[in-house]
């Protein structure tokens, strides 16, 4: 069931590799993959920025950008040109070297993550054994870049933003890792390629994605929340809370370095969306058996763009959290839920009877969710707020 259209990029790569002597072919193949990543994901970045601006506009009953090109589709090009020709200002008291390196570290770390994402059947740059770990290792390096940016700017707002960002990213990295552990437990592999292959089965027309199991659904929701926090997206965008600390850690960046931060943020979003898709939504697997003829890479990109659309939707909906709410949510809700989810996954693995494990796992997951929600709500006493002086 592997068509030509499905493998078109792989065939293209081999065709180009054929022009080189055999000793060079491996290097050329890797280079081609790198070039493809460096072309495709920045393009998607431009697309998602445009989608975000238009979508947010529509949610607020505005038009959004509609001037540059037909319906404003050339807006990202205009933004890129603007970023390129703007003056690059380095503050006088800034640590010039670190200030310069920070955006580079961020962008490099973010792009490295794509090396292990299987974007289609046989389409992964490096198929390694511990690719999930690799992805998180690269994600962890971005924290350092953020700190470098905030500290080297020699600006209180930058430093505050960086500290907020680092604290938030560390706090949410714990649940993020724990939710992925569930998938690793069930599929028995850290390799993303194998995880996708484990999900690419169908019973009837319905796929066996992990999101359709109790532990998978819980893991998916937790992963979604944690990934929003990890990429500093609204409602977890405290590190760049415009109303409080200007732009957080990239307050002092301008011109192309700012564009690099912007790129890093959105490409990081695409990366984590790709990881979530791979872990829970079946990666490049088709959603229905009869849709298997559609190329696998199409499904992958369609899924990550859906994911991005959901991020935009959330951004249009939610107000920003407060710092204590953020931390309470991470440590008092997310972490216990992920731990319970780990136990549920273990039960799933070791209970053999199908109906029993479905029933037990659903009961535990839903029960834990309701109980923790109740507990959290009771402590906060959520009620219509009364203002003494406004009546």
């Amino acid at each position: 069931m592997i068509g030509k259209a499905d493998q078109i990029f792989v065939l293209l790569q081999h065709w180009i590799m054929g022009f080189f002597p055999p000793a060079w072919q491996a290097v050329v193949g890797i280079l081609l993959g790198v070039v493809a990543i460096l072309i495709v994901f920045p393009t998607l970045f431009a697309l998602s920025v445009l989608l975000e601006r238009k979508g947010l506009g529509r949610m607020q009953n505005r038009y959004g950008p509609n001037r540059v090109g037909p319906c404003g589709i050339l807006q990202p090009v205009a933004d890129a040109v603007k970023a390129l020709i703007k003056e690059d200002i380095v503050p006088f008291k800034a640590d010039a070297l670190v200030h310069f390196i920070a955006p580079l570290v961020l962008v490099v770390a973010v792009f490295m993550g794509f090396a292990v994402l299987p974007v289609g059947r046989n389409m992964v740059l490096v198929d390694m054994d511990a690719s999930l770990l690799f992805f998180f290792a690269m994600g962890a390096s971005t924290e350092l870049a953020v700190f470098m940016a905030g500290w080297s700017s020699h600006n209180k707002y930058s430093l505050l933003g960086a500290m907020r960002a680092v604290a938030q990213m560390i706090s949410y990295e714990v649940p993020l890792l724990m939710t992925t552990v569930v998938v690793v437990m069930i599929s028995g592999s850290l390799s993303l390629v194998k995880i996708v292959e484990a999900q690419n089965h169908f019973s009837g027309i319905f796929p066996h994605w992990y999101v359709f199991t109790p532990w998978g659904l819980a893991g998916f929701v937790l992963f979604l929340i944690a990934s929003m926090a990890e990429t500093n997206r609204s409602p977890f965008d405290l590190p760049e809370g415009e109303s409080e600390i200007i732009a957080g850690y990239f307050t002092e960046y301008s011109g192309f370095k700012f564009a690099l931060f912007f790129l890093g943020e959105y490409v990081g979003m695409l990366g984590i969306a790709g990881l979530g898709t791979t872990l829970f939504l079946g990666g490049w697997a088709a959603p229905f058996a009869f849709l298997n003829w559609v190329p696998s890479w199409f499904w992958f990109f369609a899924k990550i763009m859906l994911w991005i659309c959901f991020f935009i939707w959330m951004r249009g909906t939610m107000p920003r959290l407060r710092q204590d709410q953020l931390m309470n949510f991470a440590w008092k809700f997310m972490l216990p839920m992920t731990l319970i989810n780990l136990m549920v996954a273990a039960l799933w693995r070791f209970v053999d009877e199908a109906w029993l494990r479905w029933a037990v796992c659903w009961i535990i997951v839903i029960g834990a969710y309701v109980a923790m929600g109740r507990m959290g709500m009771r402590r906060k006493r959520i009620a219509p707020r009364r203002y003494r002086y406004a009546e």
Partner: protein
Amino acid sequence: MLGEGILKGLAETAKNFAGSYVSKERLTTVQYPEERIPTSESARVFPFLVYDGPDWEAGLRCVACQICEKECPPKCIYIEKSKDKKPDYVGKLQIYPARFDIDVSVCMSCQICVEVCPFEAIKMDVEFELSTDDRFGGLLRNRQHLAKSNEYYHQIHPTEASEVDARLGEEKAKLEAKAKAAAAAAAAKAAAPAAPAAKPAESTPKPAEGTDKQ
């Protein structure tokens, strides 16, 4: 239940998102260069100089008294008095501004110049598209740019302009009445001392100016 509010919020934004494509009333944006809202009568943007009659240079109400120049908080007005004189709306000889420049980039649209002007000579315009690609010359408006006819003033601020016209007309009528009375008195007195006949006629505008300032 936990998360209920988030779902409600998501539904709300989704409703707005879809609604903005369906119903035009939701979109409050005015697509500016193509669409325009008519400026409201109370709009005030940038000062201009009012002139009466067909010729802008002869009809300028401004007498270069420089009160606005002194009162202007950001000091964006520059006036040079003329050497010669020309008759104003009541026919009296007055100095006129040889130069009257306002710097668009400095003006803060506070309207203080309008409030202090005793001659109803400077008023606020509604034109807001003052941007230009010439940073220096283009943003400095000289008196020819600034001069706009009284009819234009009527067009943009009808209520205010008719009030001003009524006031000026009243003063003019008062002055004429006074001049007539003085002329009559002079004519009555003309029998005995013929020599100082011209003097009271010339001193009459002064109290009129005083009433104007109120």
